[in-house]
């Protein structure tokens, strides 16, 4: 062995060590973030959806985000929405006007161009766009983030409804995240239309029946409430916990599975019917089982656990939608004339 070779091996070992130390530090930080969110879930008065989202995104972006910038941006968006409400351009006849106009204003802000008066004149705030290139964060996990949405103005069915909910929270009006297979959307309620759905990825108001038929939702899944139910703030924070697990997975892989399983199980304690936590848990168990020695005692145990999980998921009415179908569905949602009930009911006088 030449000196050069041995030196290069030493160097290699060194960098590996550094990498290991570095990732160990990161893993610890993930652990720390988990504790913060877990704390929120245990002490209900510390529940804060915006903070939970920020924490998860920050740790998944190697601590590159600044909390005040994130908060200020949400503040800015909120003040634009307040401006739309104050403009008086939204007509609504019932007595829950404050709630309904807030629902409408945030929707307008996110899906339409808004002229803003500044000292020098008028600048346009353009609507957020759907990221068709990487709608599931498969190329880059950060494409799921609200912070990415703020920077690039491109989002998906994860970041867009999250942002809608954050702005509504700031305005002090209720709006609820709701789950569909591989999808999150907003549910809102006002006196005029009752409960309705807001789809920000295409600026539409799909009916429950449409979501059910095109979203591949089995009737049992609806009956059991794993899909299309309104999520409380606590349940929404549970969503962040599974996001955290997925952020971890995109960085380090499964590792020994313990962190991912812990996130899923904590989410399930506070939100027992959270289907995505069940699915991630089942997938993780499957991966661990494949790694294990199948005839060994732990292998058998994993196999039993995995089967139990899949059986439970199936019984709740979950059926997997193929990815091609999902893409078709997304494309169709923009072109098909579904129900524009809200648009006709909450008419804006002139295009703002």
């Amino acid at each position: 062995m030449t000196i050069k070779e041995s030196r290069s091996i030493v160097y290699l070992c060194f960098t590996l060590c550094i990498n290991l130390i570095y990732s160990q530090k990161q893993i610890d930080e993930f652990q720390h973030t988990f504790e913060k969110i877990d704390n929120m879930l245990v002490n209900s008065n510390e529940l804060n959806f915006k903070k939970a989202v920020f924490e998860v995104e920050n740790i998944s972006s190697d601590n590159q985000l600044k909390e005040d910038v994130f908060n200020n941006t949400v503040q800015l968006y909120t003040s634009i929405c307040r401006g739309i409400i104050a403009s008086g351009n939204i007509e609504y006849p019932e007595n829950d006007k404050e709630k309904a106009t807030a629902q409408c204003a945030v929707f307008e802000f996110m899906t339409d161009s808004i002229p803003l008066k500044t000292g020098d004149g008028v600048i346009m705030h353009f609507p957020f766009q759907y990221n068709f290139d990487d709608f599931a964060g498969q190329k880059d996990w950060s494409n799921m983030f609200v912070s990415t949405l703020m920077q690039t103005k491109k989002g998906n069915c994860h970041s867009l409804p999250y942002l809608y909910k954050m702005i509504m929270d700031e305005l002090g009006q209720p709006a609820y995240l709701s789950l569909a297979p591989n999808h999150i959307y907003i549910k809102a309620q006002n006196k005029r239309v009752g409960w309705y759905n807001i789809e920000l990825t295409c600026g539409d108001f799909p009916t429950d029946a449409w979501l059910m038929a095109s979203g591949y939702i089995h009737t049992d899944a609806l009956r059991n409430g794993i899909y299309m139910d309104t999520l409380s703030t606590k349940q929404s924070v549970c969503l962040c916990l599974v996001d955290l697990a997925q952020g971890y997975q995109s960085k380090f892989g499964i590792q020994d599975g313990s962190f991912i399983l812990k996130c899923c199980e904590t989410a399930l304690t506070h939100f027992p019917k959270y289907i995505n936590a069940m699915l991630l848990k089942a997938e993780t168990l499957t991966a661990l089982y494949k790694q294990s020695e199948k005839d060994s005692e732990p292998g058998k145990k994993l196999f039993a656990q995995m089967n139990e999980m899949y059986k439970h998921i199936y019984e709740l009415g979950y059926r997997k939608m193929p990815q091609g179908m999902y893409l078709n569905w997304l494309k169709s949602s923009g072109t098909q004339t579904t129900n524009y009930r809200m648009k006709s009911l909450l008419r804006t006088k002139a295009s703002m």
Partner: protein
Amino acid sequence: MRKIVLYSFLIISSYSVAQTSATVRIPQLPTVGIPQPNTPNLYQSQQQASPYNSNEVLNIKRRNEALINEATEHQRLIDSRNQTHSDIHMLATKGFPSQSYQDGTANYYKAFDEINNMLEGNQPLNLGRVVFLVENAYYNNTLNYDDYQKGLSDQIKICDEKIREDKLNREDNLVKNMMLFRLISDTLKIKKGGSEKPITHFPIKYDLDDYKSEKHFDSHFVTKLMRSGIGQCYSMPLYYLVLAEKLGAKAYWSFSPRHSFVKIQDEKGTWYNLELTCGAILSDAHYMNSSYIKAEALRNRIYLEPMGKKEIVAYLLDELAKGYYEKFGLDDFYLNCLNTSSKNAKNQLEPLIMKAAYESSLVLTLAKLLEAQKPEIMQQKSPEAYQHYLKLQNLNQQIDNLGYEELPDGIYAKWLEYINKLKAKEDKRKSLKSR
């Protein structure tokens, strides 16, 4: 037109100007008191009254009568007020009075007892019998159970013969269900041996004239369907289920807003919806879409939920109450039916809606008697009547929480039109294929 109005306005305004100017010009005249007749002294007038003046006697008599009348009228008012008061008290504490003195209520009581016995497990559940009991009570006990049974058996015979002819498995659940589906929604021809003519059995026709049972209350009765061969979205599925019970097929009833249909399950456990009104098999999503069912309603299991036999029998108590209301109005028997039904059924929607109807009728009656235009006035005048108002609010809240939303008439008619079109299209397709 506008001109005339304008002119008349001008005339009026000039008149008022003239009036005001006149009052200004003419100085006010000194007012002179109107001469008043002296009030006659009672004593004097009595003294002056001559006993021989018959007029005067008559006057006194009249005056006395008036006094008596006034007093009795006053007493009557007090009495009627007391009566209203006790009416209000009775209504508020006991509800609407029993109608049991009316002829025909006994038939309803008998029907209820037998159905209740089945629900309590003292008697085996018999859907065919329950349907008969509900309808026979409405017809004043004039139907014959043996005739009814025979009518059903004839249909079963046709099914059996067709199953034999097609060489299908008589024990298979799907075979039995599909045969019933064909029997009700399709024309069946059954070959007879030798030179005998084949028997043709025609499908049940949809009642386009009175599908909501508005012209005649019994339009939705199964026995009416059996007599006329015409049914609608209530009687057709129920008829199917009665026959299924007799044939030994497993089938379920299911509701969507203002509609009902049959649900069956194949051996793999997959559910199918049999839409008998147009002879189609439709998906859950179709029902959700066409009648605007929201996720909340599905989650609370008020729609598209398969109902087993006990559930159906419990529901039929609501139907018994509907018939009773039609004939005799609201009373404790009506409520008793609903309470028993809701005790035995998972789906609480119908009992809740019907109880709310009872309470709302009671609250309106009480409000009228109390002359209370607003709930606050009712609360002030009679706290016990106000309790019913609160109860009504509570029932309505429960109904809302189930995810129930009223379906507008237009949408329902549109839906039926759509289904008819769907069927026409399907027939056309079939006839093209067979060519």
